[in-house]
């Protein structure tokens, strides 16, 4: 048992044994059937991964290809994957319809600011839950989870009335205020991430700083926060993405005044018809799916660029923060 453990066998070694080095491949020719089946398994795994990957990417590929097609290509059934000519005019039109210059700035502000606010508030709250013992703590933790489960549809109407009473509708405040008070989009998850993170480093460090004369707040800012940078990165990135893609609440609270990219996309057809009116009975300016696909592409491109740069931070987030440790 012990010797086996020392050799560090892993699940992958047993279930799908995979030789990696060239020498191992050479060995395969020398040794018998066991190695052979492992090649089969490897092919199977890669085949499945690529197959499922294609299914996942299909809408994106379809969108990318169709956004470059001209009207005649769409109508031509023989053209499916490769457009006969690259038609960037769709993007020019979609750019104007989405008013990208303005709505992109709006999107960045309206997702960046709440994301920062939410990250700060969730780290403070998470620290409070992780480091201090106080009466009714379990009750608050249960309510924290309950707040995650209560869907926004249930609270949206009273919130709207509340913001209306204090004249906050059509300003960014309905998005900023809940973020400050730890009630932003999926705040509960971020609080739990920070809670888990602050619990995982030794309390002795805090106590040492306190003996040296640091106050509780100082300990939090100068010791706890610098140690929790992975959690901060995760909370900020996910907040940013989720705020970017949120249109349900924001559309109601300030959609008439502040329009982000996804909101412009939501009203794409209407906006298009205002910019390019179609005379009745004519098909001259008729909106086609290529333009709509180009608009959708423009909406997701900023996020995709961000993802390609920060891909590691996103994908390794779950490992780093240990959400599953609950």
């Amino acid at each position: 048992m012990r010797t086996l453990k020392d050799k560090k066998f892993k699940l992958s070694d047993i279930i799908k044994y995979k030789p990696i080095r060239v020498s191992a491949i050479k060995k395969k020719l020398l040794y018998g059937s066991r190695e052979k089946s492992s090649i089969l398994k490897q092919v199977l795994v890669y085949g499945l991964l690529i197959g499922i990957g294609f299914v996942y990417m299909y809408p994106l590929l379809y969108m990318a290809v169709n956004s470059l097609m001209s009207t005649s290509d769409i109508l031509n059934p023989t053209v499916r994957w490769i457009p006969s000519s690259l038609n960037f005019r769709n993007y020019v039109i979609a750019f104007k319809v989405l008013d990208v210059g303005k709505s992109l700035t709006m999107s960045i502000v309206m997702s960046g600011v709440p994301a920062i606010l939410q990250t700060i508030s969730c780290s403070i709250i998470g620290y409070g839950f992780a480091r201090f013992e106080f009466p009714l703590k379990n009750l608050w933790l249960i309510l924290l989870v309950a707040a995650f489960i209560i869907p926004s549809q249930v609270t949206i109407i009273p919130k709207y009335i509340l913001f209306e009473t204090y004249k906050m509708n059509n300003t960014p405040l309905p998005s900023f205020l809940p973020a400050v008070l730890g009630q932003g989009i999926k705040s509960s998850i971020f609080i739990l991430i920070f809670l888990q993170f602050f619990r995982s480093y030794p309390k002795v460090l805090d106590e040492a700083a306190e003996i040296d004369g640091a106050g509780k707040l100082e300990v939090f800012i100068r010791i706890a926060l610098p140690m929790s940078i992975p959690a901060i990165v995760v909370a900020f990135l996910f907040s940013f993405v989720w705020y970017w893609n949120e249109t349900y609440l924001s559309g109601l609270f300030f959609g008439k005044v502040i329009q982000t990219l996804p909101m412009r996309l939501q009203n794409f057809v209407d906006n298009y018809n205002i910019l390019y009116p179609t005379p009745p009975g004519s098909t001259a300016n008729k909106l086609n799916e290529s333009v709509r696909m180009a608009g959708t592409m423009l909406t997701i491109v900023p996020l995709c660029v961000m993802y390609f740069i920060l891909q590691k931070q996103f994908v390794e987030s779950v490992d780093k923060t240990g959400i599953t440790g609950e």
Partner: protein
Amino acid sequence: MQMRDDKVKTSNRSKFSISTVNSIYGYIFIMPWILGFLIFTAYPFFYSIFLSFSSVLVSTEGIQTTWIGLTNYVELFTKDIKFPIALISSIVAIVLSTPMIIVASLIIAMLLNGKYRGRGFFRALYFIPVIIISGPVMSELIENQAAKIVIPTKYMIYQFFSMIGPVGAPIVYVFDNLVLILWFSGVQILIFLAGIQKVDTSIYEAAAIDGASSWQVFWKVVMPYIRPIALINAIFTIVEMSSNAGGDINTGITDSMFQLGHVYSYAAAMSWIYFLIILLLLVITFLILREKKGDR
């Protein structure tokens, strides 16, 4: 320290006990959350129950409510034509997609587990939908047929379901949007993957030495470990799917918020019926996936 000294003077005891100081600081740190919870979650939550039993009049001096009991609820099921259909289709879509998402993300997580070339690439690939998924993008893709990788109309089973009207509609919806439903599984894959990697590998070894096949290892060894993670994932999925901005019910709620004669209250009743059913789904999920005694 300074603060504590000040307090010492006012209290009769020689000093505050450490636990009292701790609980005061604890409450100072979580105070923003308690305030936010009361203002933006608890108060709206209960106020919307009240609204759903009322008739609301909006005037320049604010809103006036009168108690009308269950009238809104009765009207929703008897007079409203759209609501029951939207409700059924939304709920059935969640019921059908959740197991699909859980199974798909578990399979993908199992495939991704292990060390081989390109692992990072595939992990990144399967995560892309999480970044770009949003109500408007989804509905654009659905409207423009971008999600139809196979044309389901060719198959008998699809034609059967599309014939039986509103009851079959959600099933048709699932067929139509198979790919986009899978798009909801990005976070779940990561959670499963992290869970699988945490399982102590010596257990697999022991099972393998005892002659278990990989199939047996999966069902008898891996499954009991995965069950609690599957529960977390299922809850996450249901919450995520139910708040999908493009859902019939969700658009219905915002559309009927300002309906003449029904301002606020009617939509509140809608949201409450929806919420209660979601809650029921969550309870059922919990009962199915919770850890049973003597399971391990």
